[in-house]
C-alpha cells in the first residue's frame, strides 16, 4: 500500500530526525525530570521548616526563643542589621527587647504566610499558659498531599503542551524554511499523510515521555499513581492531540523559525502561569476561574490530577474532556484552513 508506506516513512523520518537532536531529547525527557526533582526537593515536606528569627535582645530572651524547636534564632548587634536581612526575606521577623519592662517587639510582614507563622511560634514560645492544646489535631501524612504530588501532574501537562507545540511547530516551520515541504508537494504525497506523520510521531514520543516521567515520579519522588491505565491513557492522548493541533496552528503561516517561535511563546506563556502548573489557579480571583478552566492546559492539568491523585475515572471528567476536545477540533480545523503550503 503506497498510502501506508508514505505515512510510515514520513513518521520514521520525523522520529529519526528528532532522536538525532540531542538537545531536543534533553528538553523533552530530561528537563521535566530535573525540574520535578529540583522543585520537589526545594518544597519537600517531612519535618516542618522552622521559622528563622532575627533577635536583637538580652541573652535570656534569646535563650527562651532558641529553646523552641520551631524557631531558629539569629542574633544581631543592631536592629538595622537585622532589618536589612528581613527586607530581603532571609529571616521571617525581628524580635527586640521591650524597653522598660514593655513587651518584646516583633517586626514582621503580616501578608507573608511564613512571617505570620513565625509570629504564632514566637507567641507560643514566650507564653507559659499555652502549653495546653486548645484544639485536638491529627497530622496528615498521606501520600498525594505534598507539593511535589501537586506539582508533578502539572509538569506532565506542561510537558505535553511544550513537546506538542514546540516539537510540531518547529518541525513544520523547519521543513517549510528548507523548502523541503515544497519539494514533497511536487510528489504525489498526500497532504493528510504529512499531517498524520506528525500526529503519529507525537504518539510515539508521548508514550516514551509519559512512561518515563511517570516511572521517575513514582520511584524517585514517590508521587502516587492511583489512576487506571485507560483513564490516564485517554487524558494523555487527548492532551497530546490538543497541543499537536496547537503546534500545527502556530506553524501554519510562519515562514521563519523565529516567527513560529514568537507565536509559540505567546500561546504558552499565559498557560504556564495561569493553568495551575506550579500553583493552583484557585489563587486567582474567583471571577477568573471559569475563564481559566477554559484553557486547554488547565483542563489537562485538572484531569491529570484527578486521575493520578484521586484515582477518578475518565468518565467523571466530562467538563475537562469537552474543553480539550473542543480546542482540539478548533485548532485542527483552523490550521488546515490557513496552512501555508508553499
Amino acid at each position, binding site marked *: 500500500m503506497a498510502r501506508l508506506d508514505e505515512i510510515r516513512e514520513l513518521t520514521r*523520518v520525523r522520529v529519526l530526525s528528532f532522536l538525532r537532536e540531542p538537545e531536543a531529547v534533553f528538553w523533552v525527557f530530561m528537563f521535566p525530570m530535573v525540574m520535578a526533582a529540583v522543585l520537589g526537593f526545594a518544597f519537600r515536606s517531612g519535618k516542618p521548616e522552622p521559622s528563622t528569627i532575627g533577635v536583637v535582645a538580652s541573652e535570656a530572651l534569646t535563650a527562651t526563643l532558641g529553646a523552641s524547636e520551631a524557631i531558629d534564632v539569629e542574633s544581631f548587634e543592631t536592629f538595622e542589621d537585622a532589618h536589612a536581612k528581613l527586607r530581603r526575606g532571609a529571616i521571617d521577623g525581628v524580635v527586640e527587647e521591650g524597653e522598660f519592662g514593655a513587651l518584646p517587639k516583633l517586626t514582621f510582614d503580616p501578608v507573608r504566610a511564613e512571617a505570620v507563622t513565625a509570629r504564632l511560634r514566637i507567641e507560643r514560645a514566650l507564653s507559659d499558659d499555652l502549653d495546653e492544646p486548645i484544639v485536638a489535631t491529627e497530622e496528615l501524612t498521606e501520600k498525594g498531599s505534598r507539593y511535589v504530588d501537586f506539582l508533578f501532574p502539572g509538569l506532565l501537562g506542561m510537558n505535553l503542551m511544550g513537546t506538542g507545540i514546540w516539537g510540531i511547530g518547529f518541525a513544520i516551520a523547519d*521543513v517549510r524554511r*528548507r523548502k523541503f515541504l515544497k*519539494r514533497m508537494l511536487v510528489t504525489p504525497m498526500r497532504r493528510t499523510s504529512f499531517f498524520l506523520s506528525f500526529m503519529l510521531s507525537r504518539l510515539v514520543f508521548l508514550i516514551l515521555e509519559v512512561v518515563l516521567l511517570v516511572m521517575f515520579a513514582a520511584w524517585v519522588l514517590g508521587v502516587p499513581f492511583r489512576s487506571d491505565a485507560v483513564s490516564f491513557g485517554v487524558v494523555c492522548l487527548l492532551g497530546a492531540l490538543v497541543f499537536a493541533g496547537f503546534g500545527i496552528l502556530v506553524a501554519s503561516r510562519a515562514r521563519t523559525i523565529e516567527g513560529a517561535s514568537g507565536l509559540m511563546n505567546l500561546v504558552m506563556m499565559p498557560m504556564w502561569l495561569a493553568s495551575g502548573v506550579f500553583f493552583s489557579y484557585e489563587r486567582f480571583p474567583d471571577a477568573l476561574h471559569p475563564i481559566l478552566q477554559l484553557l486547554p492546559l488547565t483542563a489537562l492539568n485538572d484531569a491529570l490530577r484527578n486521575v493520578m491523585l484521586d484515582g477518578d475515572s475518565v468518565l467523571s471528567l466530562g467538563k475537562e474532556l469537552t474543553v480539550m476536545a473542543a480546542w482540539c477540533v478548533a485548532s485542527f480545523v483552523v490550521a488546515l484552513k490557513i496552512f501555508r503550503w508553499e
Partner: protein
Amino acid sequence: MDSHRDQIDSPADSTVVARGIVKRFGDLTAVDGIDLEVEQGTCVAVLGPNGAGKTTTIEMLEGIKQPDAGEIVILGRTWQHDARAIRERIGVQLQETEFQDKLKVYEILRLFDSFYAADADLSEIINTIGLEDKREAFVKTLSGGQKQRLSIGCALLHGPEILFLDEPTTGLDPQARRRVWEVVERFKANGGTVLMTTHYMEEAERLADLVVIVDKGRVITRGSPAEIIASLGAESLVRFSLIDEDVRVLAEDELLAMEGVSAVRYEGADIVLSVERTQAVIASLFRVVESRRLRLEDLRTHRPTLEDVFVALTGRHLRDG
C-alpha cells in the same frame, strides 16, 4: 495554432505544452505570455538572467504556481484535473531544496520512494547519481554537488517521463557541474524528456536540443544552440581595448566600414566586433590602428556563444541579473 491543438489532444506526441502563460505578483508581471513546447525525448533549456521569470515559469509548469492566464498541458493532462496523475509521471528538482541535515542519503531516497506508486530500485538510483559511498552518510556531510545529485535522485527514482530541473548546477564548481550533467545526459539517453532553466550558457549548449532565451518575462528568441548562435550572423567575435586611449576614439562608423564587420559594441574599456571573415578583419584592424598611432591591447577572438546572442539582443550579460 491548429498544430498546437492537435498536440494537446494527443498526449503521445507532446509532453509539455504551455501557451500564453502569465504570472503577476502585485504590479510586477514576472511572466508575460510565454509559449513553450517540449517534444518527447528532447531537452529544452530556458536560459535567461536572474529575475527573467525562469523559475516562475518552470514552477507554473510543475503545478506549484497557478498561472494568471494561459494554458498548461503536461502529458496530455491539466493540473486542474489530474494533478496527482501528473505528479506520478514527472520528476522535479527545485532550486534550493535543503534536505534535513540529520537524515541519511538512503533514508531520504526511501522517503521519496514511498510517495510514488512505482517501486524503485534504490541501489540502482544511488549508482546512477554516483553516491554509492555515501549511502549511509548524513546529508550534512555531503558536498554541494552531492546534495544536488541526491536532489536529482529523488526526482528520478520513480522513473519519470519528464524531468524538471531549476538551475541544477548553480553554485557548483566545474567538476561537480559536469557530474550533474552526466546524470541528466544518462536520463536523456534512456528516452527521458528534460525541461530545465539555467543561466549558464555552457550548460544550455551542452544539454539542450532547444534553447529558449527569456528576458523580463518574455521569450526573446528560441532555437537549437547552433541556430541561435548562427542568428548572430558572425563567424567570430573580436574583442580588444586600447592602451592609454578611450576605445571610443575609434568611431562605430569607422569600424563598420571595415570589410566583414557586421556589428560594433562598446563594453566598458573594450570594443566587441561581430565579424564574418576573422582573418581579414584583424588584418584591416591592424592597419587602422597603425595609421591612427594607437596601440592595441588584449586582442582576443572567439566563436560566438549563446551569451553573445543574449548580449546582442538585450545589451546585458546573462549574469548581470
